[in-house]
């Protein structure tokens, strides 16, 4: 039978791993989207920005 601490390590390791992976995904997606938006907004276009509609 596995040591009790192996189960504890498994539970905490799994939860920690998933949470860190989700946070990394969120931050990476946010950074990518912001960069993409900045790229788009750098090129001049018509007057009203959709940022005003959403934000």
């Amino acid at each position, binding site marked *: *039978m*596995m040591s*009790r*601490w192996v*189960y*504890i390590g*498994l*539970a*905490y390791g*799994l*939860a920690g791993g*998933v*949470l860190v992976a*989700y*946070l990394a995904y*969120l*931050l990476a*997606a*946010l950074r990518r*989207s*912001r960069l*993409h*938006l900045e790229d*788009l*907004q750098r090129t001049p*276009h*018509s007057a009203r*920005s*959709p*940022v*005003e*509609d*959403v*934000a």
Partner: protein
Amino acid sequence: MMSLDRPIFGFRRSMVTRLFGLLTTGGLAAGLVTGLLIVPPDAIQGEVQRIMYLHVPMAWNAYLSFAVVCACSVVYLIRRDLAWDRRAAASAEIGVMFTALTIAAGSIWGRPTWGTWWTWDARLTTTAILLFIYIGYLVVRQVVEEPEKRARLAAVIGIIGFLDVPLIRLSVQWWRTLHQQPTVFRVGGMMIDRFMLFTLLLNLIAFGCLYLYLMLKRTELEMVREILVAEQVRRIAHDE
């Protein structure tokens, strides 16, 4: 350009996010040290009971997430403002993650305690149903393209799905289950040692801060993506 850094209760959004990030980091570190190293092991279950300092806060966070989905969905159906749909979607995604982790941590605890990874116990089964309802909710959001229709459909699922939460809570009282009875909120007072309760509360607060931090980040992402789509549509219309 209008800033995405909109105030939340009078404070800058980026500042609130950073504050909850710091509270989460400190809270989780303190909760981890207290739960794993300081609080004594349970008299009956032994060391493995330490998994409860993770399992219980994650389960409560999952219920909180789906309560927010339900509330935001109701507000969306009344006001028809897509900002509420965005909040519901963000909370559902976080709730699904916490529900899956709750089941996984419970299963890991169940193996040395009950002698099995899984059993079709009422509490476990209703929790699994909750997970599948909200996975369905996220699938519907991916499948339906028209924003208003997607928001309307998702809101209905989000509200109906939440009915499973009180069922989960009452399942251990309505049916004879392997899962233990409530320890904190129970008739006749709490059945938990003070130090253990403190550790549990510490982790509950830390996970609550984590939920708020993730919500702030996730809704921000949804907002930026929506602006991106609107900008692209505007450019296509302009080019034509």
